[in-house]
């Protein structure tokens, strides 16, 4: 009835989740029926602390430019992006792009 996931916020992006970098979560879907799109919606509703933090994370209904999305340490561009079908044990990583030098 649930899918177990690890959700990580790296590169300073943990500011949007009360400074917690790593979240072990179970989302209320059956394996096979939920995609990254559902995971992102669930994350917005359940992990991200405040409304203003969602603006840091989401823009134009997808993850904001400058935030990289990795599924099991692989760029989500290689994994169908929003349409990736979640599996038990998946690790979803969101990391800010850094610019400083």
């Amino acid at each position: 009835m649930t899918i177990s996931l690890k959700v990580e916020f790296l590169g300073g992006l943990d500011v949007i989740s009360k400074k917690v970098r790593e979240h072990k979560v179970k989302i209320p879907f059956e394996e096979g029926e939920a995609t990254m799109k559902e995971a992102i919606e669930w994350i917005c509703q359940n992990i991200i602390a405040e409304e203003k933090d969602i603006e840091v994370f989401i823009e134009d209904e997808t993850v904001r430019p400058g935030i990289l999305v990795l599924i099991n340490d692989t760029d989500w561009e290689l994994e169908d992006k929003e349409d990736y079908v979640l599996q038990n044990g998946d690790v979803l990583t969101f990391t800010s792009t850094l610019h400083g030098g």
Partner: protein
Amino acid sequence: APLTNLPLTQDEYKRYGRQMIVDGFGSLEAQLELKGSKVLVIGAGGLGCPALMYLGGCGIGEIGIVDNDTVDISNLHRQVLHTTDAVGLLKCENAKRYINRLNPHVKVETYPVRLSNDNAFSIIEPYDLVLDCTDTPAVRYLINDVCVILGKTIVSGSGVRTDAQLTILNYRSSGPCYRCFYPTPPSPESVGSCGDNGVIGPCIGLLGVSMCVEAIKVITAYYDKDEPFTPFLTVYQGYPHQSFRRFKMRPKQAKCVVCGSSPVITRETIESGAINYAVFCGATKYNVC
């Protein structure tokens, strides 16, 4: 192109002997590749300082340094090639002086200017490899576009607070570029600089050193002969535990506006000013890092 039959002097054999005997480095041939190479380091700050010291030490033939900034006391906790008596001096000139003292076999050229649409092609063109040690998205996009058009590989580093990132862009014109990864720039208010967010000196320093390791691999063709190049982004965390995570990244994107199949960004559109990087990345003034 590397001068592969250039001999080494006795001083050079002594100086580089300890690295030439390392299994996997590539012995004399690899050393001559380093000596025959020209590397441009853009930014002589938190990343550039350690990268320049180790590039100078390992025997790159010619190093160019682009930085129009002067040394400030707030730099010194992390930009450890610059010392207190150098406050007020141009960073590129001070770095040149240091490399000359470290290794007289290295020729050093300085460019005390801000990289811009007007000067980027002429500055980058003579070099084989570029290290992007800069601190704003606008300059990172400019360096990327010019390097793609000129066919230069970029070793790209960045960092803030206790985090840092390392990648290789446009690897031999076949790997993905910065725009393949980031087709849309981040909004200006989401961009943090070292000035705003702070930075731990050795955290950004460690990434600068790691850039030199990648530069050595690229120049000695390690990714051609020993370990095929695959697109990556390596993420360093200094806290809670020091770690590197290597992410597998997308390949070159056919729809990329600069390295794709129908590029709309060209030398002409850059040099004419039709591509305006400040406008593209938003008008916020970034603090220098």
